[in-house]
């Protein structure tokens, strides 16, 4: 799932699709934590709590990224990353 997310992030040209791929990566991490917690360390809840916080952080990240993408859409009228090449070395 994490690898799917990385693949999507690298290949997608639409910024929303890139964001979805990023969500996929974050969710993969969350599942990883929950599974490790459930099967390796069933006595404690550290992984579960980490997951709860990670979900909240991911939600904040998405909200901010969407806001910035909407700004780009207003300026550019599309959200293709290939257009974001005004600054290059």
């Amino acid at each position, binding site marked *: 799932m*994490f690898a799917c*997310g990385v693949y999507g*992030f690298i290949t997608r040209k639409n*910024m929303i699709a*890139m*964001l979805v791929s*990023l969500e996929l*990566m*974050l969710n*993969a*991490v969350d599942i*990883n*934590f929950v599974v*490790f*917690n459930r099967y*390796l*360390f069933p006595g*404690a809840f*550290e*992984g579960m*709590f*980490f997951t709860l*916080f*990670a979900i909240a*952080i991911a939600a*904040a*990240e998405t909200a*901010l*990224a969407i*806001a*910035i*993408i909407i*700004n*780009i859409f207003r*300026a*550019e009228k599309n959200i293709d990353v290939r257009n*974001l090449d*005004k*600054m290059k*070395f």
Partner: protein
Amino acid sequence: MEIVNMDYTQFLAMKQEIGLLIVFIVVFLYDTFLPAKSQKALPGLTAVLMLILTVCGIVFEAVAPETLSKTAFAGMYVSTPVIAALKTILNVGVVIVLIQSVNWANSSFMAMRRGEFYELLLVTLFGMYLMVSARHFLLFVIGLESASLPLAAMVALDKNRYESHEAAVKYILTAVFSSAIFMLGLSFVYGLTGSLYFNDIYAALTGAGVNMMLIVALAAVVSGVGFKLSLVPFHLWTADVYQGAPTSVTSYLSVISKGAAAFAFLVILVQAFGMLYAQLWEWMLYALIILTITVGNLFAIRQKNMKRFLAFSSVSQAGYIMLGVISDGAPVATAAMMFYILVYIFSNLAAFGVIGAIERASGKLSMDDYRGLYRTNPRLSVAMMLAMFSLAGIPPFAGFFSKFFIFTGALSAPGVGTAMYVLVLIALINTIVSLYYYLLVVKAMFIADDQCVIEPFRSSASERLGLWITVAGIIGLGIASWFFSELNVLTATYPLI
């Protein structure tokens, strides 16, 4: 599991955090409730409040350092005089950034958004405080995210400029990508050790062999923090973001967030992964430092835009800061790193202060526009020259001593071998390369006898004050290098481990 009532008095252990929170609340209430005509005083008010916080930090450090040693939340949060000193160093930088940004914040465009800028800035600073104080990865991740997410909003603040949006989207996507990788590494560490406390991880890794999963986990953690520090090969966002962001935000991003991330990186590597020093991360850092310094320098040579130029220069400076991390938390190296961060704050903010003043007065950002600047604006050119000399490391300015101490620190690790001498030699050679491009700016300003396109202008009082402070810092820290030995005593008394 028994249920324990939480002891709320332990929040009092977080002295500096509470101070910062009070500043934040005052600024927020001022911004929200006071009438529009009194809002012009907000930048000044924020700067003064942060100055008070800084002075309090220095006084505490000087009078009663032992009162700053605190632990809270079952060891999740730790504060020692060394960490408090680093936070005070960050505060110094923030005060200078605030002073320099007064003029920009009172421009007609920013009038609506003035409060947001200061609130976001204080929140990111709070996140950085948590980052350097965290001894548990949950608290660390929260600090990291609250330090980097509001920064994306700050980068996007300049709504009328297209570059600002482009920079913001590049920043947020790479930041989320890197934190995902970082958390993946953490999940593997958790799977291997069963804990997220730094010292539990350290204990669990003691005696355990190195396996594939551990290598992947550590590489993911290092690359995640490497993104924040813009180490090569994770530096690609740096130049674009620095160029696109408003200049005040760029200067904040380049010094404060970099300093905090570097120190947090040191704490993680030493306290959680200290057992793997010789086997794994010494060599990871070795490669990263060589790449960072060299690539940063080589790309800086071909830049024409001043902000991009400083972006690549800051990439290579981050490599030098990492020299303080590679000796596994030796007290001298830690002190050298803190000194380097302080000097870097002064030198880089002096450069950004000049660039910001010129950008505001004339809109010019290209290096070619700086040709013959000495004829039209002699004082700004001298300030810029001092900043460049300090960044390049020419004695007697502060930059020379910070580089000198950080090289000493890198060689102070126990059992230092030939490899480390080679590393320092490479760093030294790179200093000479960097001299070339820093002096290109000086040459453009002083020696080129073209007609300068930048008209003579008088910068505003706040900008001049900011420049005077930074110039005083550059020269003062160069002369008063005893400050380093003070830091050295501090780090030796309260070692990281």
